[in-house]
């Protein structure tokens, strides 16, 4: 049997969710969904787990805090303590209040950029990458469900398109791959 990929095109995010729910309730695995903006509530339907980018950001942030404190301690307390206006830099804990602003800024710097870079790599969106959406209309006004037959051995392509036609689908495209 030839492997087929089915694209069900919808015109509205709610209609797309109806379609996805229908497929999933019949035990069909939805490969992916493409849309011009986030479709809220689609993730639990097609089984997408929550992203861990928030945790990544926290880890980068805490690394930034530690690096900033360590660096400042080395520069201004250990290696070259300065005495400015009769206020010598002698101990980290005495000077700490004055070190908070830079520590905070560096924490934010690391958290934001660390997360942003992770995000770009995980999404495979980097400068010069080719577009990989199945249909150029998905960045304009169409919402697409992608189903692959080789992931759904219990169902034929006809069965899947039949189910989709019971939902307010705009068009269905099939492709061999």
């Amino acid at each position: 049997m030839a492997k087929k990929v089915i694209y069900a095109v919808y015109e509205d995010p709610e209609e797309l969710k109806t379609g996805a729910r229908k497929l999933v309730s019949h035990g069909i695995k939805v490969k992916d969904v493409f849309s011009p903006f986030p479709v809220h509530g689609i993730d639990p339907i097609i089984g997408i787990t929550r992203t861990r980018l928030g945790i990544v950001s926290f880890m980068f942030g805490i690394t930034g805090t530690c690096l900033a404190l360590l660096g400042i301690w080395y520069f201004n307390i250990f290696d070259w303590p300065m005495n400015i206006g009769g206020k010598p830099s002698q101990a980290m804990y005495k000077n700490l209040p004055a070190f908070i602003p830079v520590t905070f800024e560096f924490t934010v710097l690391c958290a934001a950029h660390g997360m942003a870079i992770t995000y770009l790599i995980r999404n495979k969106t980097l400068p010069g990458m080719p577009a990989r959406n199945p249909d150029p209309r998905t960045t304009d006004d169409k919402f697409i469900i992608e189903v692959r037959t080789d992931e759904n051995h219990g169902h034929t392509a006809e069965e899947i398109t039949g189910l989709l036609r019971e939902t307010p689908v705009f068009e269905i495209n099939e492709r061999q791959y």
Partner: protein
Amino acid sequence: MHSEASIREPLILGHKTYHDITNDIVTPIENKAPRGWYVLMVIASLIAAYGTGCILYLISKGIGVWGLNKTVDWAWDITNFVWWVGIGHAGTLISAVLLLFRQKWRMAINRSAEAMTIFAVIMAATFPGIHMGRIWMSYWVLPLPNQFGSLWVNFNSPLLWDVFAISTYFSVSLVFWYIGLIPDFATIRDRVTKPAMKKAYSILSFGWTGNAKAWTRFEEVSLVLAGIATPLVFSVHSVVSFDFATSIVPGWHTTIFPPYFVSGAVFSGFAMVQTLLLVMRKVMHLENYITIKHIEYMNIVIIVTGSIVGVAYITELFISWYSGVEYESYAFINRATGPYWWAYWSMMTCNVISPQLFWFRKLRRNLAFTFFMSIIVNIGMWFERFVIIVTSLHRDYLPSAWTMFHPTWVDVGVFIGTIGIFFTLYLLFARYFPVLALNEVKSILKVSGESYKKDAAKHQHH
């Protein structure tokens, strides 16, 4: 689906489809620019060229060509720096703080406001750079290993905090803005037909697919970046105010500065957003997206922050008397009645009195009046920084050193020049970038769009 109360004014007027939104925003990018754009571009770039010339002259001759003297050793340069940073704050407030508060009206204006932030911060960063005199040594502000001992930068100094604050703020704003732009660049990429444009937007869009997981990550990144950009934006102008507040100069040495500077920054930033958007919505026919209601919301922010600034001015005056410190009292009496009285009263009129007119709903929703007021507030906020900086310095503890500050043509040229560079960058943005956050505006269409709201109301009455 989530629906919205019918008494809320719609945020997108007329009957629009998703495709209409794409059309309305992308068509101006595909077509030839209107003549007005070329006219504005020529004017802006000529001013920018003049300003660049002044900056090069300044760098080659040294900062002696400015009007600074040994008493007033900070004047227009730092005034302009604080003014530009302040303008930048509105963009982050709109995109980050309003995102956390789930304010949907931000979606039509956040893209252009953030662009404004980035360009304003670039202009701001120019001033400390050129004020160093020997700009080729500007890397000395970084803690780099060196042959002097090694002598490190002083992390106790607010001036160094500023280096970290401004550079973090600039780079984080840029990333936040660009991450939001990627899906919209993909929309342009999938639509344009000219090969050169297709190639360019294909590179800019980083191969965005718009699959479900990518959008989940997108929303998480937006939320977390908004969450960390919010304390960041407040910290930036607080740190700017520390440049003054941690000194012992009467008029600067006040604990009220951080909140007072932050609200002043938001106040001036929203005024600049109004100036830019009122022109842009007209020229690019965005009246259906940037509605009168959007303008009114921004005017409400202006009146709130303007009133906070007014309270701060009056608190400062009161405390200078109540403290019993005669130097402090004199600094404020001198501001109001000394040789710079005109600057002080311009500031008071522009920032405290005139925004109160926005209490009238008619005026809040009047475009010509709003535009006029936005210019007034921009002028007023420039004078605020001038008053704080110059009137505090020109007469301090030592009367024999009292003097006046007179700007030279280089002072004026550099300042006007940065306005030119700013507008050049903004015009390029308006021409080649999606000026509305397409993906965000589309996501609220069926909830806050005018015709959809009417349909929903009809269903309820059946």
